[in-house]
């Protein structure tokens, strides 16, 4: 496959691993931010190929995992309302709320549909003028431009039956919050390549400077990830700390200006609660007042939702790199993809799901 096979080339992978081995002299903890990177690392066995000195820990970059429980309950409550077509990306459908999930709501008669793009949801709104079409707008900076565009288009067309339930989160504030934690172990970040493709990497420069951590925008294929690790290790060994782009084929310093413009036009920065972590200041996006007619949270009254979050799983420790999924006593026992105790096991991008799928062999 063109443009992919090159970045999976076993010879190149071997060469990069050898270079990393030659460069590293002492232990380093490197966090990959994005769940997509976590999956690639585990699927390809990159963690098993790296020299022992390098420990990879898995960041909070899984939108499904960090979406607050209240919001999932709210989504289910809206989906159950008469006359609503509730649309979502596929992997949100299986995330459990307090009592059920969107799949179950669908089996009980709710009109829940999986879409690949919010613009598909917008099309549904055009085709079904007598229905209310709601899109579950979750995700990081990657999905924000599309979700902003859908609202912008609806506004432009005067479409009244489209709205979004918004829970967007932003990566840089979470990276800072992690570094501020007294238990922080992270020496360097592999920044999420797709987020950087949209936002560029200029935002990370003050973080690298302030906390003295190398930050390396990194792609998703084995060669990309090893290039990112090599760049991070080189900086760490030399005592450097700067932003060093290793995903040149997709990422520029300034990012995608058009995408940023539409995000800024429709959304504004807000404090945002992250599931189980709590509120991180200025870490999310919400619809600007001008677009409040498209805010499903305002449009639909769902009454008082009583959410239940029994504290069993250790996802918080995993997200800080303090624990690995297989160190959780419930991992692979009470907690499996079929019976997940936490969103990190439900989501295909969650670290626990990745360990379960790809890693059990080594650990049994």
């Amino acid at each position, binding site marked *: *496959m063109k443009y992919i096979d090159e970045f999976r080339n076993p010879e190149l992978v071997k060469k990069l691993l050898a270079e990393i081995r030659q460069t590293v002299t002492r232990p380093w903890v490197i966090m990959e931010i994005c769940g997509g990177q976590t999956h690639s690392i585990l699927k390809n066995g990159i963690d098993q190929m790296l020299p022992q000195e390098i420990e990879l820990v898995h960041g909070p970059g899984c939108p499904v995992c960090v979406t607050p429980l209240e919001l999932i309950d709210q989504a289910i409550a809206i989906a159950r309302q008469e006359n609503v077509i509730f649309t979502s990306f596929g*992997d*949100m459908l299986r995330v459990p709320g307090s009592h059920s999930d969107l799949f179950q709501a669908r089996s009980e008669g709710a009109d829940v549909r999986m879409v690949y793009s919010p613009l598909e949801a917008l099309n549904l709104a055009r085709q079904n003028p007598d229905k209310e079409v709601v899109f579950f707008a979750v995700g990081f900076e990657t999905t924000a431009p599309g979700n902003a565009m859908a609202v912008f288009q609806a506004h432009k067309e005067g479409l009244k039956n489209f709205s979004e339930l918004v829970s967007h989160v932003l990566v840089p504030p979470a990276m800072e919050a992690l570094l501020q934690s007294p238990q922080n172990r992270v020496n360097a970040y592999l920044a999420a390549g797709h987020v950087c493709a949209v936002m560029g990497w200029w935002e990370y420069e003050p973080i690298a400077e302030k906390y003295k951590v190398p930050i390396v925008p990194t792609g998703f294929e084995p060669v990309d990830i090893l290039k990112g690790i090599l760049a991070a290790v080189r900086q760490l060994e030399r005592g450097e700390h700067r932003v060093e782009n290793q995903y040149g084929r997709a990422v520029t310093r300034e990012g995608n200006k058009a995408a940023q413009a539409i995000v800024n036009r429709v959304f504004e920065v807000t404090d945002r609660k992250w599931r189980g972590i709590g509120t991180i200041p200025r870490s999310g996006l919400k619809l600007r007042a001008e677009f409040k007619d498209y805010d499903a949270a305002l449009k639909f009254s769902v009454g008082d939702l009583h959410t239940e979050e029994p504290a069993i799983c250790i996802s*918080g420790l995993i997200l800080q790199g303090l624990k690995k999924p297989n160190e959780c006593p419930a991992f692979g026992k009470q907690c499996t993809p079929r019976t997940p105790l936490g969103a990190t096991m439900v989501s295909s991008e969650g670290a626990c799901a990745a360990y379960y799928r790809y890693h059990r062999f080594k650990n049994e």
Partner: protein
Amino acid sequence: MSQPDFSQFSCPLPKTDYDTIQMAHGAGGRMSADLIERVFMPVFGNPTLEKLEDQATLSFGNHRLAFSTDSFVVSPVFFPGGTIGELAVNGTVNDLAMSGAEPKVLSVGFILEEGLPIADLHEILLSMRRAADFAGVQIVTGDTKVVNKGHCDKIFINTSGIGVIPEKVHISAHRIQPGDKIILSGTIADHGMAVMSVREGLSFESVIQSDTAALNHLVHEMLNVSTEVHAMRDPTRGGLATTLNELAQASQIGVRIVEDRIPVREEVKAACEILGIDPLYVANEGKLVAFVAPEVADAMLEAMRKNPLGKDAAIIGEAVSQHPRKVVMENIYGVERIIDMPVGEQLPRIC
């Protein structure tokens, strides 16, 4: 405002059991297996059914018959490379053929939705006739019901079939031995991605064609080489990964496969990449996977490759005594990982 506290990250206890049928119960993965085990088996269980093969094997005097049934609800009913009718014929023919049986006769039951164009029905019937002629089976009995508009999706088809198992042929998961070679008859994930690309309106440079085909002639040619075919399945719903897991569990033996020996078409690979879907879990409708005695594997592979339906056949791995009941795959970097059963439907990722 309180400080964000990562140590307090906690998650809800999700439902572990649904009390209504979910789509994932029909996806061929773990939830399907659970439904069979917990709901169907306690009521219907008997020694024949409990073998959990794709067909029942019945003895009448010196004769052994294979009997199987399958229902087809695919949407859209016409897709690149086939129709729901061809699937219905080939699906039951293949379920019979996987026991080594020579399929002889089929029954067909139709559930038709009010408003279905007769021209569409006719086209589906013609495609079924063609598929039956190719496989050498006769459709000998049938039934038709019509339901109100909206009570089914255009047309649902059930087929059942009977085949005769030749002497000396004994194919069952229980015969798998460590050392058996695993032969896959061709590229994986063609059918699932063909249907998904039409359903989701995704278009790629070249149209992905379903691989729907009757495999009984290919099986016949394999058995002419040797009857040392120990187990055989067609990896339909749930894909190759699910089938290998089922066989590993039924035989209590480990399965080891090598990633870059598994043939996948370039366009199928690309479609899977875009949607974030693993081709190992995607449905096939014209492929088989066979566990054969190592000494006959090469000759059998050679024979299979002479048949157009087996031209891409490959030995993808072997049965091993290590890691019983588990499927392990070695990737292109030599790292091994577990290939698990899927839970339910594969879901496209957010980003």
